[in-house]
């Protein structure tokens, strides 16, 4: 299992469209992928699960992945966060 700390930098945080993009991306990998925020841990492949975190800009979350493509999954998901979910120029 590998994990990476990720800061949310897009203005709207983990809102609906961002969560949809994230879960869609996570579903492309075989690895089990989780987001950990405060005491909550949710399946990154679940759109509604991600929304329950109600995580905002500036919050720090931990990406966790375990499986044969865990490194690729973390790299791709971290990239999506860093690209601000492609919703800001």
């Amino acid at each position, binding site marked *: 299992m590998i994990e990476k700390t990720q800061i949310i930098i897009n203005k709207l945080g983990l809102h609906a*469209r961002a969560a*949809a993009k994230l879960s869609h991306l996570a579903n492309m990998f075989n690895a089990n992928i989780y987001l950990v925020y405060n005491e909550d841990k949710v399946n990154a492949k679940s759109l*509604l699960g991600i929304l329950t975190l109600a995580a905002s800009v500036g919050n720090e979350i931990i990406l966790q992945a375990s499986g044969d493509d865990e490194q690729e999954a973390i790299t791709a998901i971290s990239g999506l966060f860093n690209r601000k979910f492609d919703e800001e120029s």
Partner: protein
Amino acid sequence: MIKSLIITHGNLGHELIQVAEKILEQKLDIKAIAFDWQGDGSDMIAQLEKFIATNKGHKIIIFTDMFGGSPSNIATRFVNKNVEVLSGINLPGLLKFFCYEEKSINFKETIKIVEQGAIEGINIISEYLGEKK
């Protein structure tokens, strides 16, 4: 394969679909029927009959906006082993339905999952925050 439609008072169903499509960034395979405020429901019944006949051989889920309302009452007439009604659908429930990848495997299980998603989408925020703290 599960076919779906949403029948509501006014254009609520159309709007829910549009919002879900915007969030998921994809065209969704679901039909919306708006209840005609001036009518007696016969038009809605005819549209439902047509939808069910067109999709014969498929499982069908009919989402309605409110238990006890006319759209829901009309849909209730069509419930059988291949047709189920889920009343009180909301955005989380609709998103759950379209994101649930195993929906072709078990019809009844899928409906329970969607019901759960819709219910869990309703929260009293101060209580939710209290639980988290």
